[in-house]
């Protein structure tokens, strides 16, 4: 690390763990992932919110949604299959009951949204803008929002179209797009989102999966999360980082500070904690400790110097 860069960092007065995701400034790179932290309020009595940079809410839709019938969960080797089916309270209840309380917690709030039509998604974006929400995460990897029976995130064209529209409906604030690993070429979808004006990308959503319950003679179809998919998440971040210039929130299978460092080293500006929180609610603190430890060890003034360090190839600029 050249001395001049360190001096520049000191000049910039970066606090060591602060990162920027487009216009959104996070006090730490730790982001609580959508759908695995409820509406962010449930944990008030259990954990300290200080280590958390941002909370992504459970994906909300225009109207409340009951989700899928049971069984919704199945444990697999080092993983979890879920088929919650986007059960959520809907926009109105969210705005009335959840948002005001969420804002008092401290971390930045990123509202995850999805809908059946692009009009529905734009409507959500407009309403949330009107309520001065700072950041949105478009869950386009959700199998409910289909255009001609295709999940949006499987097609660069559909992605470009939808993101462009939402970009217009949500100007000036942080617009994130969450991508799916269940795609032949995630980087090209990422590029489409960048071209359409996204401020950052969240990767990855769950991996398409199925479990067989021989005892009850049934199958459970859903999305796989947890340590089993960490190699898939890392690969996706690694590849997308080489193709686009957007800040990335990397996630999938993070269960310790080392995992977070791995994601950052291949290009993530921030890391998402998803189902790893279920096994260890102290994980956000542990990740922050590990990041601080790494800064101390390397003598670097800011975590931003670690981003993409092991992803040698120069990013296009």
């Amino acid at each position, binding site marked *: 690390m050249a001395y001049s860069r360190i001096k520049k960092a000191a000049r910039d007065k970066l606090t060591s763990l602060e990162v920027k995701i487009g216009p959104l400034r996070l006090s730490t790179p730790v982001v609580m992932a959508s759908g695995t*932290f*409820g509406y962010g309020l449930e944990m008030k009595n259990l954990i300290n919110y200080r280590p958390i940079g941002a909370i992504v809410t459970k994906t909300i839709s225009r109207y409340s949604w009951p*989700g899928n019938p*049971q*069984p919704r969960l199945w444990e697999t080797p080092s993983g979890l299959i879920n088929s919650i089916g986007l059960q959520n309270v809907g926009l109105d209840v969210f705005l009335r009951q959840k948002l005001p309380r969420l804002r008092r917690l401290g971390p930045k709030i990123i509202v995850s949204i999805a809908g059946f039509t692009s009009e529905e998604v734009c409507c959500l974006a407009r309403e949330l803008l009107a309520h001065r929400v700072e950041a949105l995460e478009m869950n386009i990897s959700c199998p409910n929002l289909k255009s001609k029976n295709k999940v949006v995130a499987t097609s660069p064209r559909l992605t470009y179209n939808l993101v462009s529209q939402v970009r217009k409906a949500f100007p000036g604030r942080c617009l994130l797009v969450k991508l799916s690993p269940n795609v032949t070429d995630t980087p090209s979808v990422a590029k489409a989102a960048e071209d359409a004006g996204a401020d950052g990308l969240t990767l990855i959503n769950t991996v398409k999966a199925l479990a067989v319950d021989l*005892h009850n003679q049934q199958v459970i179809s859903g999305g796989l999360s947890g340590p089993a998919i960490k190699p898939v998440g890392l690969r996706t971040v690694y590849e997308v980082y080489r193709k686009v210039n957007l800040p990335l929130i990397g996630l999938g299978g993070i269960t310790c500070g080392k995992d977070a460092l791995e994601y950052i080293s291949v290009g993530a500006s921030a890391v998402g904690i998803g189902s790893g929180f*279920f096994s260890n*609610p102290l994980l956000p603190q542990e990740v922050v400790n590990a990041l601080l430890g790494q800064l101390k060890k390397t003598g670097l003034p800011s975590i931003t110097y670690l981003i993409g360090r092991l992803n040698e190839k120069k990013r296009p600029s």
Partner: protein
Amino acid sequence: MEILSLKILRMQSLGPDHYWMELENRFKKAFSPGQFLTLRPSPHIFLRRPFSVASASKTSLGILFRKVGAATTILTEKNPGQEISALGPLGRGFPIDPEIKQSWLVAGGTGVAPLLFLLERLMKIQKVSFFYGAGCQPLLFRDLFPQGKYRLFLATDDGSCGIAGPVTALVEKQLQSGEKPEVIYSSGPLPMLQAMNTLGLKYKIPVYVSLEIRMACGLGLCLGCVIPLHQGSSIILKRVCHDGPIFLAREVLWKEITTFTRISNGL
């Protein structure tokens, strides 16, 4: 709610595949009967596992568990002195109405765990009858029962102890004899809970059941344990981990639950 690394104080085999484990109790908040905690037996198993608290004192928590799979097998290999990550108290316990004078507790198999704790509490303030059924005599853990004033009715499938047949038959016999509690608390395998619901409806007695369902977080975050309930004229969604695991039996949509899970838990 707290997450703690707790020392294992005791570990005892009770009978075929059943164990009694005691943990030091350093939770600031007291557990009430029906509440549970989640344990992480090994870093190599991803999810925490829920267990009902079967006894609680200021210094220790008792858990009765059955070895059924990977996590519970690892639990059986633990020794006193080792530590284990525990998270609790979780869920809401059995509602206890101070007005009520007489209650019945109906347990099947491993489901006896939360009712042992409830018994400890209730026998001091109510007239309690405890109905307890299991597959056979070695699976009726009578040593776990406290001394005190309550009636104990026993049933085994094979008749090796108490009357032969399901515990629900024992309950029905007692109801037929004209005796009638103000409330019934029940815990055990699903078919038994369903039968208890039927009895409750027939004899117009409120029945509270402790439901078991797969959980991921146990904290109300993931919506993985959500079930539909009748409430008034509408159907609402509730999280078993957060709003339960205790529910009023007549509100449960039994068909919804039994079509996806046939948990073979004892009895």
